[in-house]
């Protein structure tokens, strides 16, 4: 059980060999502790950086030269008076500072306790807290981009909007039930139904644009597709060889899909080689082809390879590809004699290693375009809790819409909507009992 009255202190950086360590303190005694540590009488200005010697209790000589920032409630991370102190690296100084602060009346913070206080003081909601907890684990710029967006309140705002739309239906519905003596008109019923569908669509959109732990946001999948023997695997290997570094390489059977993570410049891409698409009776091959179709669905960018006419192949596959970004490649130009070139087709020879560089440049452009769409539209649901709740909201709202359509029972529909509103609350800012909150925050690390 966290006690919210205590002054809490913790090391905010990871213990180990580092140039600096940051120690964080939150509580009413911040000012007093600042004064005692630095042996100054004047109280610190908020948000100023002070470069000062710091002293342990009863010691004449300072043990470090530190930079200190005092934040005044409520304008701090926790919403309370706080101090952030950067000291020189190494665990000795950090520990000494923490011990001194404990001697001055604070105690060591428990995991997640800073975030918990920020949550209790309405500085952040739970989505933000969870993103803060996850950002330390983000291992690529894309994840951290989304997490930062959530920390800044992007996801909360989006969810708040759809919660608001539910609340508007509730308000209008209650008005209809409690204040309108006349019977409900067909037009009004239609209006309710329409608003419900709109809210439903909002949630569906958020989910569509959300990435989850399994479905990593960092992933940009580029699949090479086409008929057998046109040179897909050759191209795959060539791109791997050209790429700056190979992260992993996973080998399946020749009839399975093969994928590898590569960097093209700074772009992090998962490249997939698929089995050739054609009719077959061979069971194993069928399976491979099935997988190829799945990959077409899943990938973000498709490279369509052919040794005769990639455009024709693209047209044949159109109903699977839909609106995805495609790159057309005509391979084996070393065997061709004509020089006729069409726009939007990349002419290459894997065998002779020709035409690969323009293809790579183009891939990079496609990547950036996709990514920017990503960044403006996508959310990262960092844990099971967020994913499950949002999916449940979608499901329950779908049911509610269906039921209202069938029964036209407004009072029953509102009952569904109240439950859905509660689910939104548990997602964004649960008013749960303290124990439940604790179990959520306990998973955070110390100093967060």
């Amino acid at each position, binding site marked *: 059980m966290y006690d919210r009255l205590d002054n809490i202190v913790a090391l905010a950086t990871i213990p180990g060999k580092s140039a600096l360590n940051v120690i964080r303190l939150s509580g009413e005694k911040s000012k007093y502790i600042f004064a005692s540590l630095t042996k100054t009488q004047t109280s610190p200005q908020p948000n100023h950086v002070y470069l000062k010697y710091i002293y342990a209790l009863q010691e004449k000589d300072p043990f470090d030269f530190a930079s200190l920032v005092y934040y005044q409630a409520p304008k701090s991370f926790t919403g309370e008076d706080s101090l952030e102190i950067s000291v020189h690296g190494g665990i000795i100084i950090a520990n000494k500072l923490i011990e001194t602060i404990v001697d001055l009346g604070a105690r060591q913070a428990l995991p997640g306790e800073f975030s918990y206080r920020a949550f209790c003081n309405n500085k952040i909601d739970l989505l933000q807290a969870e993103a803060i907890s996850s950002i330390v684990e983000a291992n690529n710029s894309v994840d951290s981009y989304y997490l930062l967006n959530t920390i800044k309140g992007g996801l909360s705002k989006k969810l708040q909007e759809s919660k608001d739309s539910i609340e508007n239906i509730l308000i209008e519905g209650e008005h209809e039930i409690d204040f309108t003596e006349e019977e409900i008109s067909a037009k009004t019923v239609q209006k309710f139904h329409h608003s419900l569908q709109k809210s439903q669509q909002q949630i569906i959109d958020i989910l569509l644009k959300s990435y989850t732990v399994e479905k990593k946001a960092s992933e940009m999948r580029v699949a090479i597709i086409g008929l057998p023997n046109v040179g897909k695997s050759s191209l795959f290997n060539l791109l791997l060889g050209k790429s700056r570094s190979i992260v992993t390489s996973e080998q399946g059977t020749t009839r399975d899909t093969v994928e590898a993570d590569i960097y093209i410049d700074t772009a992090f891409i998962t490249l997939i080689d698929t089995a050739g698409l054609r009719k077959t009776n061979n069971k194993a091959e069928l399976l491979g082809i099935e997988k190829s179709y799945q990959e077409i669905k899943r990938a973000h960018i498709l490279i369509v390879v052919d040794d005769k006419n990639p455009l024709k192949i693209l047209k044949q596959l159109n109903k699977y590809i839909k609106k995805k970004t495609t790159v057309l490649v005509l391979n084996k130009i070393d065997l061709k004699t004509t020089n006729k070139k069409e726009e939007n087709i990349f002419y290459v020879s894997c065998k002779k290693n020709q035409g690969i560089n323009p293809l790579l440049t183009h891939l990079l452009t496609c990547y950036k375009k996709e990514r920017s769409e990503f960044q403006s539209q996508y959310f990262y649901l960092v844990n099971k809790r967020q994913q499950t709740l949002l999916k449940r909201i979608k499901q329950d709202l779908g049911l509610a819409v269906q039921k209202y359509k069938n*029964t036209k029972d407004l009072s029953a529909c509102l009952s569904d909507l109240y439950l859905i509103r509660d689910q939104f609350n548990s997602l964004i800012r649960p008013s749960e009992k303290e124990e439940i909150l604790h179990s959520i925050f306990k998973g955070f690390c110390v100093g967060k």
Partner: protein
Amino acid sequence: MLENNKPIVVAGGGHAGIEAALAISRMGGSCILITMDKKAIGRLSCNPAIGGLGKSHLVKEIDALGGTMGFCSDFSGIQFKTLNKTKGRAVWALRAQVDKKTYPKYVSKILKTNSRIKIVEDEVVAFSIKKERIVSVKLKKEGFLECSAAIITCGTFLNGLIHIGKNSFSAGRMGEPPAQGLTECLREHGIKTGRLKTGTPPRLSKNSIDWKQTEEAQGDSTIEPFSLFTKRPFKKKQEPCYTVRTNASVHKIIHKNIQSSAMFSGKIKGVGPRYCPSIEDKIFRFKENPSHLLFLEPEWSNSNQIYLNGFSTSLSEAVQKQALRAIPGLEKVEFIRPGYAIEYDYAPPYQLNAGLMSKTIKGLFFAGQINGTSGYEEAAAQGLVSGANALLYTQKKDPFILSRDSSYIGVMIDDLITTHLDEPYRMFTSRSEHRLSLRPDNCYERLADIAQNQGLLNLNQKKHTSLFFKEKNKVLNWVNQHKITLKNKTVLAAKHIKRPEISLLSIIPKEYKKLYFFKEAVFSVETNIKYEGYIVNEQQRMASIQKLEKARIPKNFNYNQLQGLSNESRSRLNKIQPETLGQASRISGIRPTDITLIGINIKKVSRET
């Protein structure tokens, strides 16, 4: 029979006082009902109607608890209409227009023929207490009267002040004097009081209206009674009422003369209800609305006095008349009585416990308008609860408390004692978080046991209640045993009715029509089945709240010594002094973390003592 042989006093013969006195008598006690005017017992101060949105749920629950309001409305009704029929059966609301002469006459007869109730015409002006208990009331004419408990149900009478335009004068309501002295006595004893206001529209002379230009509004073609104890089949001769609409000229006249309104000139200090706005309110607040619907309702059968529903006002009489005469059909309208507003004292109900007894003065109960509510039904429901509790108090028994998940009455009382009122309180179905479980059709299921256990039902009521359950079970058995053959399969009737387009009425065999409560039984069984999924959801929610409701906070619990509470939470908790954690959790601004904190500490306290 009374514990110390001193009577229970009920002060006031309005809707609250009536149900209080009758509840005491049904439970085997007796009381003295003191009221200022014997002839005004049960008078309907405002509109000639009982029930309506939200309120009909209360009337049904009063009925299930043996109260008289529904039964008397059935008896004196002249038009019956179910509102909200297209919005889901949980919110269907029966509204009965009643004959304003018959209703009070009938109620008075019931009281007067009750040997356990003694009616005294007098006025309670003060009371005295000993060791924090009420021991006597002081009557204006008769002087001190010793009592074991007293229920204050003074309605709009305490320092009542009527406003018509610029004129104002003291009155309890039109034609009746105010009650003076009691407010001051309450304050002397540390009870806080405040000021509220309400208004009523003019009464028109029937002969001055050109009826051809109005539109007729009929009651329902098939009608249901409120009460389970009203004889079936329920047949009534119904009378129509009529409607007219305001128009731009009406609005202009009111606009121009707004300074003549007591409410707008700032003369009235009491706060009025937002949801029952005066016509001047409607015109100023809903500017975009070019026209408002007005109902012309006969106040009694063949009455020459027409109640103008929707035109509550405190404009001067001349302006009221001038504005109305701009409405087609009312060009030559004459008033029997102008509309008026009334200001009165009330005692903020956070000072009461869930049994409606003062937290500081034992044996002193409050019910009705004096608790800041508005409406006959709200008053009657509180009256019933306060009556039962006054008797239980004198018998040193546990109080009779209705929980939020049992009834709208429970919701209302809990709201009253935990929230800060800033306008008169009236019932809305949206005030309940369990609306699909608290339906009019299942009020007997919800409340019959409680009513029986408290002795709130008389012999006849017991008989009818158990007959209803017996018949309902018959229908239920059929539904759970009978299979319906569809095109390619058979399904249980209970399952079949779940489909929205299937009604139980259309599939149940004819022989069930002989049941006395056929309609009610079929409807109730069917609704339970159709709402099953929702009810399960609501019950889960209820269960999670239950724990908090059961956790009692000791009296005089010291919030000041609780570290970690914000100052704001502390001052609210100190003011309201909730009795349970559940109540505390509903005080606005109190956070779940506060509740946990209090929870841990009350456990500590109870371990220490």
